[in-house]
């Protein structure tokens, strides 16, 4: 996919998520919208996948450690054909296969359950290590939230992955600058995340998380690493592309009306962001 196609794919994902949640009227839209451009890159051609065979052992793996952004991942999976688009309307409904936080036992294409923060990151590290033990060359992608970096387990995994030279692990921090209680630095000061991961032994770089070309280029540099994992700090805007969420101060979890969703969909269809 070229840049324009990937951008269009990202807009499609945002629109489909809003269509799915339109009548639900609530969800973790802030953190879902901020990772949509990354998901568009990964599911728009970067990852080796087979939607008809989610358990294919030749696939690249993806773990959404910030599990509350599950609806963003579900949208990518639905649009790629892992399951019908209609399922998106069942997000968080009784008996759904698309729960608020990712559950690998319920959703085709979800490689690991996540939601207790920090745990998906360790699992992604474990997948990368398990593949390396077996001499396989699949890539493993994972996204942690910047708020999630408050968790000690993130830093345990950060120490472990370079120690075991897991160079087929490509991780991202969705640095949207906000967590549930407000701006990340008002909660705990994260400092320079790129520098921190570099100090832990990662190949780390800062990227505009809404520039799909830049994301793709960063992944390409990550794939050149022969003895260390890659951490790409995505500088993003929480709620990106969804007007009523993007401009809210506290937008970790959003409640909205169908009219607001329709308005945001219309804006996205016009190419607005």
């Amino acid at each position, binding site marked *: 996919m070229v840049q324009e196609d990937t951008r269009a794919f990202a807009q499609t994902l945002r629109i489909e998520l809003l269509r799915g949640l339109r009548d639900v009227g609530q969800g973790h839209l802030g953190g879902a919208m901020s990772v949509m451009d990354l998901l568009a890159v990964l599911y728009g051609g970067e990852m080796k996948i087979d939607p008809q065979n989610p358990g294919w052992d030749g696939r690249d793996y993806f773990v959404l450690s910030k599990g509350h952004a599950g609806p963003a991942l579900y949208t990518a999976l639905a649009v790629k054909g892992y399951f019908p688009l209609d399922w998106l309307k069942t997000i968080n409904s009784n008996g759904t296969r698309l729960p608020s936080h990712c*559950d690998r036992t319920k959703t085709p294409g979800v490689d690991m359950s996540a939601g207790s923060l920090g*745990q998906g*990151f*360790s*699992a*992604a590290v474990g997948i990368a290590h*398990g593949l390396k033990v077996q001499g396989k060359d699949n890539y493993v992608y994972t996204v942690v939230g910047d708020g999630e970096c408050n968790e*000690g387990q993130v830093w*345990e995994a950060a120490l*472990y992955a370079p120690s075991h030279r897991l160079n087929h692990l490509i991780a991202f921090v969705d640095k949207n600058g906000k967590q549930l209680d407000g701006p990340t630095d008002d909660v705990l000061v994260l400092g320079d995340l790129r520098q921190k991961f570099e100090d832990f032994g990662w190949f780390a770089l800062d990227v505009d998380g809404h520039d799909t070309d830049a994301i793709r280029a960063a992944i390409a540099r990550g794939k050149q690493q022969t003895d260390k994992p890659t951490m790409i700090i995505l500088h993003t805007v929480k709620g990106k592309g969804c007007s009523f969420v993007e401009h809210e101060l506290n937008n970790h979890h959003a409640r909205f009306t169908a009219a607001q969703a329709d308005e945001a969909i219309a804006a996205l269809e016009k190419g607005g962001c």
Partner: protein
Amino acid sequence: MPYTVRTQLTPGETEMRKVYAATLADMISKNSKVVALSADLMSSDGTQANHKKDPVHFVQAGIQEANMIGVAAGMSLTGIIPYAHSFACFASRRVYDQAFISVGFAQCNVRIVGSDPGITATYNGGTHMPFEDAGLMRLIPGMTVVEPTDVVMLEDILRQTETLQGSFYIRMARKEAVNIYEPGSTFELGKAAKLRDGKDVTLIASGYCVAEAMTAAGMLAKQGIEATVLDMYTLKPIDREAIVAAARATGAVVTAENHNILNGLGSAVAEVLAEEYPTPMGRVGIQDQYGEVGTLDYLRDRFGIGAQNIADKALDVLKRK
């Protein structure tokens, strides 16, 4: 072959950890998907020499138990069969959310190995003395909780879990355990082993307390009281049939465990009896206390989980029969 009980129980000559390391090394030599992880305890769990020879399959996870359990869960998704070891206090309460979510909830095939259970932590003392680990693991849906009684059972359980699907908590003494079974014995998970048959009272024990229960049965026999002894090595799923059958045959039950009586073996047996066959019973075990440093014998007496305590409890229960 099924299990055969030794005619005479003898002190163990081989440490459990030696059998743990040797069995895993043999399993790995035949199946490269088996991996043993250790949280900076290779010199304690016996795998250090194996790690030097094969660092790929004997993985050093460092002092980060939470990440180790998550890594093991992730590895299992690629077909790896992980055995992740730490001391039982860290392999249970320190990683409870990881065991619950990344292993249990996510249905990953991980074998968590917790060593030095209960008073066998001796000089490491109260911080390292888990009286609650099996109870915590029992509350994770789908988790099989097993406490191998001696080296023969440990080897058999390790080999069985290589091919079984699901998550396991293996509660393992690290040093010598009394020899109960003849070499080559095999064991069915979820079934109790009957070590002795008697008509007056049933002693149901696990782990360290199995040998103590056998000694207690000998003490009772001298008073003309014949005890059935069950080794309940699988705490979950527990052998309901064996518990009810023994209660029906003897009309009195005593449990004995190197663990808090709350949510351990005593609780599990009480639940079965209350629901299916109410029977006078008593529970020998840690009475909701914290551990402390000491020798094994001192701690056995300090917490009252020895043969004499079991025999005394049996006499108490018999009065209520």
